[in-house]
């Protein structure tokens, strides 16, 4: 995809997982990129791996911290026209065991974080006249999964928030879109979910991942590259007329009713 070489991008949650992969791809395409994480250690690790990235410690759920981080990003990058919201947390627990603090943290990081960062960044994005916001939502932003109450609520919320932002910022040519990946087993969050499934089912990692791959019509699970590619598309000039959308990156999982054994018994007649 054609990404302008002079983009100035802030990637929240950019020290690991999808965020780091996206930050590095944007830097590969010539963008100046700043990343945030709330953990200094993770930021140091990310910048050791890729010294091009500007590290900014920031809790995206804290208004003042976000305001400061966005200000520093604008100063260090010389402006801001691209915001990628990747910061996210998940708790997987039965309803009765979820604490109020866990609920609050998930909503603060996953949903309020997107709001606060967008609010702080929007003057710069609007001024650029080519602003882009892309948020990582989730397949859990499209339908419910058990034991992920706050996570599902936050991701449904992110899609709604982005549609509202899209409608409001369109006049300034800022586009706002979401990507909705299915769980990716190679990110930190994905690994934690795989561990949780292993504990729950007593199965091995390869059994859990094998069953997971089979649950997708296209026969494999999501790779970080799939998500990076879709985000890159929304950032590219090709996507200048696309706003307020949420694209599923799920190998057809959300089409519904497709699980091993559910294939049609009779192969269609091919002449």
């Amino acid at each position, binding site marked *: *995809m*054609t990404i302008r070489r002079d983009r100035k991008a802030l990637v929240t949650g950019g020290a690991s997982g999808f965020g780091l992969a996206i930050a590095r791809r944007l830097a590969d395409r010539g963008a100046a990129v700043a990343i945030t994480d709330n953990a200094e250690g993770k930021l140091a690790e990310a910048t050791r791996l890729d010294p091009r990235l500007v590290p900014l410690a920031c809790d995206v759920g804290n208004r003042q911290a976000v305001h400061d981080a966005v200000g520093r990003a604008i100063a260090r990058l010389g402006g801001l026209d691209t915001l990628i919201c990747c910061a996210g947390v998940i708790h997987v627990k039965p309803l009765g065991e979820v604490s109020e603090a866990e609920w609050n943290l998930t909503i603060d990081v996953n949903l309020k974080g997107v709001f606060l960062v967008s609010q702080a960044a929007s003057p710069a994005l609007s001024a650029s006249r080519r602003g882009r916001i892309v948020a990582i939502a989730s397949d859990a932003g499209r339908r419910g999964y058990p034991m992920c109450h706050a996570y599902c609520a936050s991701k449904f919320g992110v899609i709604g928030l982005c*549609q509202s932002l*899209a*409608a409001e910022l*369109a*006049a300034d*040519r800022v*586009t706002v879109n979401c990507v909705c990946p299915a769980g990716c087993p190679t990110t930190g969050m994905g690994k934690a979910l795989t561990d949780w499934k292993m504990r729950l089912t007593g199965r091995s990692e390869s059994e859990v991942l094998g069953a997971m791959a089979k649950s*997708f*019509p*296209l*026969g*494999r699970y*999501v*790779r970080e590259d*799939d998500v990076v*590619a*879709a985000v*890159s*598309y929304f950032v*590219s*000039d*090709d*996507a*200048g*007329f*696309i*706003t*307020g*959308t949420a*694209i*599923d*990156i*799920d*190998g*057809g999982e*959300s*089409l*519904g*009713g*497709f699980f091993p054994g559910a*294939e*049609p018994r009779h192969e*269609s007649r*091919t*002449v």
Partner: protein
Amino acid sequence: MSRERRLEGRVALITGATSGIGRAMALRFAREGARIMCADRRREPDPRIGDDAGAPTHEAIRAEGLDASFVACDVTDGASVAKAIRAAADTYGRLDIVAANAGIAFETYPIADEPFEDYQATIRVNQDGVWWTCREAVREMIRQGQGGRIIATASIAGLAGCPWGVAYGASKGAVVQIVRTLAAQVAKHGITVNAICPGSVRTAMSRETMTNPERNAFTRALHPMGRLGEPEDIAGAAFFLASDDAAWITGVALPVDGGYTCV
């Protein structure tokens, strides 16, 4: 010519390639390195109905030193579609990408005044035509055994209640469901099937919107970005869905609509 040539070595057939969105797709895919079979009922763009004057699409592509051919194709006629698919595979030795793009729209009627013949003709081209194109494309792609990409041009009228004709909305809603169902059905063959849902785009099909100032202002206001789409906006989305970047995306209906469906 794109520096990256991200469709190098691919062969694409595009229905409705003579004008509008199909022409933009054909030019874009060719510039990304694909060889193109342009399929359409008519070979020449027709300025009398609002097409931009110019060479037939395949000639315009060849004039850039790229590879394209033309095959006559009426998407309402299954035999004609099968022949076009065959022509693409025979001419270029393979078929990787099929854009089921041909469509028509009649002037907007209130349903009380809508002639049944117009309703039927709309369904025949927009819905039956996509079905024929998908069926023949899937047959060829399964025969080749190397997967493939099918991209159908639906519309925001297939997602939302738009203030246009009932026949058009019904036919485009059907396109979205053909795409979803087929995506689930053919995923195991490595074939992805996706729809693009354009908002109002500056083509001959929207000439009334182009030429009537009141209608133009009304339509622009429906799109939060405050402008109509360009054919190139839609071609860019089609290119993404045809590229390796979208390998794990199937069954989606992607709005390319300046925000129309998000408000």
